[in-house]
């Protein structure tokens, strides 16, 4: 097999993986603090994608620009969801939380179907199909842009949680729920903020995704599943872990597709997940619970 083919596929795999990582980041942030698995994750991302498509269709705004207002919009949606729906469920058993969010997901998917119809929608920017030539390699320009942004957003978020006052307070909540209550932190508000921040990441990822794939109301569940796989591999709650998990999945699937059957490549991703769960259940970069 020619070496430049292998390198091309590997680079594509890593870039795709970084975008997957960004997609999974929101899920990870939310679980790390609120300890709720957001089963409507992919559906929220689909909402963001539709917002980007509408912004482009109506005002010709590039998704790389509209991602900022969309992130704000999703922040509001996430905040509201946590405040209104999820807070009462914080101490309920997992299956109860699961059904709540599964119901939210059903409503979102079918709401989108009602509003936008079943057709696949996308955004046609003029650079969508450009490639960058690096020696013998051809690298997809959009993937380079989105992967770079994914790194930047993760770094920014990481800094926010490490440095800002609110970020520190949120981490305190995550580390010690009781302690946070004792020192007088408004845990409910911080949870809602966290859910909002996680959702904002989802919003940015969803807007960016419109450059790479077409959006239909039904793409959500696939992304939800993909995001789960990634964050568990990386470590639920770990931000660098989400990126690492994304890259690992992106690279593994690319290599599996190249050397084995492409149609079976998701099996390899799931196989890694199973191995990680068995030997390091907290994930590669996760902390022991």
């Amino acid at each position: 097999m020619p070496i430049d083919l292998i390198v091309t596929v590997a680079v594509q795999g890593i870039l795709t993986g970084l975008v997957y990582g960004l997609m999974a980041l929101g899920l990870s942030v939310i679980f790390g603090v609120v300890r709720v698995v957001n089963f409507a994750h992919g559906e929220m991302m689909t909402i963001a994608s539709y917002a980007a498509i509408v912004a482009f269709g109506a005002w010709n705004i590039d998704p790389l620009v509209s991602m900022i207002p969309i992130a704000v919009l999703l922040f509001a949606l996430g905040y509201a969801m946590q405040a209104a729906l999820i807070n009462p469920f914080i101490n309920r058993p997992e299956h109860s939380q699961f059904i709540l969010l599964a119901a939210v997901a059903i409503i979102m998917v079918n709401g989108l179907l009602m509003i936008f119809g079943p057709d696949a929608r996308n955004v046609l920017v003029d650079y969508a199909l450009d490639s960058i030539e690096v020696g013998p390699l051809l690298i997809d320009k959009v993937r380079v842009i989105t992967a770079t942004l994914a790194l930047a957003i993760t770094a920014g978020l990481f800094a926010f949680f490490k440095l800002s006052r609110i970020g520190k307070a949120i981490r305190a909540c995550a580390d010690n729920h009781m302690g946070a209550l004792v020192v007088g932190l408004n845990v409910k508000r911080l949870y809602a903020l966290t859910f909002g921040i996680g959702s904002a990441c989802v919003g940015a990822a969803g807007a960016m995704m419109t450059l790479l794939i077409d959006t239909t109301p039904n793409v959500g569940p696939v992304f939800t599943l993909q995001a789960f796989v990634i964050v568990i591999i990386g470590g639920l709650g770990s931000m660098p872990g989400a990126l690492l998990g994304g890259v690992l999945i992106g690279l593994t699937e690319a290599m599996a597709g190249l050397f084995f059957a492409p149609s079976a490549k998701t099996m390899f991703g799931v196989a890694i997940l199973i191995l990680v769960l068995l030997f390091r259940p907290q994930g590669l970069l996760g902390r022991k619970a």
Partner: protein
Amino acid sequence: MSTKLTRRQFAATAAGAALVAGTAPFNIVKAQTGALKIGSIHPRSGFQAQLGIACQRGIDLAPRVLKQLGINANVEIMNADTESNVDVARARAEKLINDGANVLIGAFDSGQSAAIAQVAEQKGVPYIINVAAAPQITEQGYKFVFRNFPTAPMLVGDGLNLMKGVFEKSGITPKTAVFMHVNDTFGQSMAGAIKAMAPRFNLPFQIVDTIAYDPQAKDLSVEIAKAKATGAEMLMPVTRLNDAILMIREMVKQRWEPQIVMSPGAPGFYEGQFYKTLGKFSNYLLTNVPWYNPRSSITQKLLDEFTKSYKNELFELNVGFSFEAVMVAVNAHNAAKSTAGAALADAIRKTNITDHVMAGGALQFNEKGQNVNIKSVTLQNLDQRPKVVLPLDIAEDNLTLPLPSWTKRS
């Protein structure tokens, strides 16, 4: 402990009994002469929603167009949604029959169609399949199931024959080809048929690699890189719509330019969304599929009405086959002068409609209920719409090959 039932408990029992009774039919409509009740059952939500809705358009237009053609179409259409799910399909079929449907039409998907076929057969209600290619459905010995759509082997047979015609007409004969297919029910039926039939067709090219990909794939970059590395002169894709878009987009990004891209009989390249999304990159791709005969006057009538009702949608084969299914039902109703299942099924079996929408011979069914007269055509995307280029007697435009470079398109 009291053994007497309290009023509450009695109420609960009554409610339970009512539940059972509530599922009882309110109105069992017995077969009678009068309007023909057609149950249209398609996946109008769920992951196949787009295609189910396309089929529904053909059904909705049919009564109006048939009347314009002077055909006595005394029909009432009842709609049902399978939600892209086999068990819902079955339950909805039962419901339609319960509500008095005399004929069922559907269902785009092979699994759902197979489930509906069992119900129809059992109830003795004729079922006309408008779209679904899995060969097994018409191999079960059913008496009430008819299919006006080619099976996967028929699609492949026509597809491979037309390929030879394309090579002859264009003077370009590839020596190597790569076969890419989506690994779902349809893709695997097609792959199986190609594997079984290709040796018999004496094809000029060798299939150097077969690449199957997951129907849920969100990224085909590896697949295309692999296909490009084979250096094949032709790409033979079997796709659905969304993956067809991903595939071509990835080919442009990776600048893979085989001489010919020709589908042996799959959706994707000829659909409205494909043109909207890919613009100039949609041009020159070829598909060998059953298609409407652009020279037929009935097609023209249907096309006019379609354009009036659905300005932004593309008229394609799902619409055509769905319309024809209604046409078959109406024709049988007029011949049988009855809405009874057995009479209608007999009349459908004797169907012989020479003037219709889709290309090929007369609309007839064999003893298995399969229409074997459907003929594929070669479509080429020109000016961002599908045009018939072969066979020549119904061609709308000239075949243009080889595929021009992606980067040199205006």
